[in-house]
C-alpha cells in the first residue's frame, strides 16, 4: 500500500517520523497555511487536518475552543476539502483527515472517501468510530487506497489489541494515556512498555499521540515507536505568539 512505502522511505533518514495537527479554519485558513509552512520546514511527515465539529467530545479545551470557533465562523466540510486539496498539492508531507464520525456519516461513506481521495488525502482518523461500526467505511476506503487509521489505547485488553491490529492500515495511532487531547503525558517505563507491546502487535508502524510536546518526548518515543504525533502543543505555541512562537517551538524540538 502507498502509505507503507511512504513511511518506509521517510524512515530511512530518521529514527522517528512526525505528524502534526491543524484545525481547519482556526483561527483562519490563512493562518493554517502559515502553520503548515513552518511544519513543512520542520520536516514533518504527516499532517492531520481536523474537520471542525460542534461536539468534539474526545478533545481537550484548546481543540474544543478551536472546533467551536471554526464551526461558529461558518467553516464547512466543503471548504475543508478544498483546503486539503490546496495543501496536498503545495507540500511534501502527507495529509489525513481527522474528525468525528458524524461528518463522515452525513456525507455518506463513499462520497466521503471519494472526496478525500480527490483532495489528495491519504487516510483518516475518526476517533469516535469503533471498529464494530467501521465495516463498510473501512472496506471502501481500502479499496480506494485510503488508509483508515485505527487507535490502540492503554485500556485495551491484549485480545482487543489483536483485533485492532487486524484492522490496521497505514499506521496505528497509539494513544499514550487516558483522557482527552492536550494533557501532559509522563513518558515513563509503563508507557514505554505499552508502546513496545503495541509496536509488537501491530502489523504496521505505530505513531504515538496525546501529550507529546517536548524534545525529551520525541527522544523517548524514538525508542518505542515509529512516529510522534504533536497536537495541542503546536496550537498552544501558535496561540501564544503565532509564527514566531511556532518556529521557536519546532526549534525547541531540534527541528528548525
Amino acid at each position, binding site marked *: 500500500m502507498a502509505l507503507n512505502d511512504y513511511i518506509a522511505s521517510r524512515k530511512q533518514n530518521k529514527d522517528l517520523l512526525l505528524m502534526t495537527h491543524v484545525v481547519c479554519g482556526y483561527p483562519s485558513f490563512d493562518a493554517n497555511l502559515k502553520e503548515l509552512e513552518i511544519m513543512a520546514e520542520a520536516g514533518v511527515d504527516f499532517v492531520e487536518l481536523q474537520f471542525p465539529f460542534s*461536539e468534539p467530545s474526545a478533545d481537550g479545551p484548546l481543540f*474544543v475552543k478551536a472546533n467551536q470557533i471554526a464551526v461558529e465562523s461558518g467553516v464547512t*466540510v466543503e471548504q475543508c476539502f478544498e483546503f486539503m486539496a490546496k495543501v496536498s498539492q503545495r507540500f511534501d508531507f502527507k495529509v489525513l483527515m481527522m474528525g468525528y*464520525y458524524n461528518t463522515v456519516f452525513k456525507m455518506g461513506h463513499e462520497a466521503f472517501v471519494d472526496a478525500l481521495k480527490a483532495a489528495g488525502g491519504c487516510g483518516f482518523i475518526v476517533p*469516535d468510530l469503533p471498529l464494530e461500526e467501521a465495516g463498510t467505511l473501512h472496506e471502501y476506503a481500502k479499496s480506494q487506497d485510503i488508509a483508515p487509521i485505527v487507535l490502540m489505547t492503554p485500556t485495551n485488553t491484549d485480545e482487543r489489541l489483536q483485533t485492532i491490529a487486524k484492522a490496521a492500515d497505514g499506521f496505528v495511532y497509539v494513544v499514550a494515556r487516558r*483522557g*482527552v487531547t492536550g*494533557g501532559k503525558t509522563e513518558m515513563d517505563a509503563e508507557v514505554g512498555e505499552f508502546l513496545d507491546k503495541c509496536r509488537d502487535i501491530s502489523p504496521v508502524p505505530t505513531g504515538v499521540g496525546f501529550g507529546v510536546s517536548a524534545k525529551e518526548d520525541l527522544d523517548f518515543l524514538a525508542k518505542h515507536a515509529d512516529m510522534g504525533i504533536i497536537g495541542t502543543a503546536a496550537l498552544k505555541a501558535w496561540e501564544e505568539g503565532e509564527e514566531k512562537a511556532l518556529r521557536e517551538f519546532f526549534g525547541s524540538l531540534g527541528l528548525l
Partner: protein
Amino acid sequence: MDLFDFEPGREGYYGEYGGCFLPEILTTTIEELKAAFQDIKHDPSFWQEFEQLMQSYSGRPTPVSHLANLSAKLGGAQIYVKREDLNHTGSHKINNVMGQGLLCKRLGKKRVIAETGAGQHGFATATMAARFGFDCKIYMGAVDVARQRPNVFWMENLGAEVVAVQDGQQTLKDAINECLRDWVTNMHDTHYVLGTAAGPHPFPEMVSYFQSIIGREARGQIQKVAGKLPDRVFACVGGGSNAMGLFQGFLDDQQVELIGCEAGGLGPGEGNHASRLAYKDASVGVAQGFKTYFLQNKDGNMLHTKSVAAGLDYIGVNPALVHLWERERVRFEAVTDAEVTEALKLCMKTEGLIPALESSHAFARAIEEAPKMSKDEVILINQSGRGDKDIFTVADALDDDHWKEFIKVKAEHYGAE
C-alpha cells in the same frame, strides 16, 4: 414487543438507531458495564432490591391521580396523571439514578459523574451519591446553571461539585461532552450516570429498564382507577427516559396510543426549538455516542436549540422512540413555550398540581386533545417532575412583579453585607 431483544450483531440497535459510538479507550469500560447490566437484568433478586430501595427511599409506588376538575372543564376525555413528581428529589430521574447507583456499587466504583440540564438529574445523582457514599461531580451547561440555580444550590449542599460548562451552547449537550471527557480520563474509578435514555448502548436500554418501573406501576393503577386502559398516553420527551419509562407499560396494548411531546420552543424553524421528530428540522446523525435524529445542519454540526424547559433542550432523542415513531407506534407532537405556560397555569388553578416545565409539555398537549375526545375515553399523562425547581423560570415567564421585587430586595440586602 421486546425492544431489547436485539438481532445478532445489532446489539443496542432499535431499527436503524442506537448503537455505541465511543472512543476506543472506553471499549473495556463499556464492556464491563454491559456485562454488569446484563447480570442485574437477569438476576431476579435485583429488581426486588431496586423496587425495595425505591419504595423505602423515594416513596414508590407513585400514585395515579384523577383530574376530575380539569376533565370536567375541558369537557372531553377523563384525565389521569402518573405522579412522578412525588418522588424523592422531585422527578422520575431518581428511578434511573438509584438503579445506576446499585449498579455502580456492583462495579466497585467510588466516583460518579453526570450531566444535567434541568438540574433534576444532577440533583438526583448528587442525592444518590450522598446516599451511596460516592464522590460526585456534576457537569451542567452555564446557561442551565443560571436558569436552574436552586437545583445547583442543593447539589452543592449534597456534597457534589457542580461544574458550569462554558463550551458550545452551554446546555445539556455540552454537559454530556464534558462528561465523556471526564469519563475517558477517569473510567477506572468512575461510573458515568447518564441521565436520559440516550447516548451509547447500553445507556438507552439501561435507563429505559430502570424507568420502566413507571409503566409497570401505571398499567395496573390506571386499570384500577379508570376501569380500563388509557386511550392516549402523553409524556414529554427530552432524551426520552420518562416517556420510555411510561410507554413500556403499554407497548403491547395496540389500542393505547402513545404520544411523545417535544419542546416546540418558539415554533418551527432551525434554532427555535428542540423538536427532533414533530418538526422537520432534524435528520439522522451520529453524535454523543449514538445514532438518532439530531437537530443538525447538512455538515452534521448541531443546531442551537431553544426551550423554556431546560430538561427538554437537547439535540438528540432516544433511538427506540425514533424506531417506534417510524413504525407509527408512537406519535410525536411539539408544544410551544407559550402553550406550556398556559397549561401550567391551568393545572395549578384547577387541580393544585405544579408540573415541571418539562412535564407541562405533556399536559399542554393532553389539554389540547382532551376536548375532542369522548367522555368515556381516558388520558394518562406523565407528570415527570414538580415545578418547584422552575421558580425562577416560571416567575419570569409569568412576569411576576412581587417575585422580582423580592429578588431585588434580597440582592440589596446581600449587597449591603
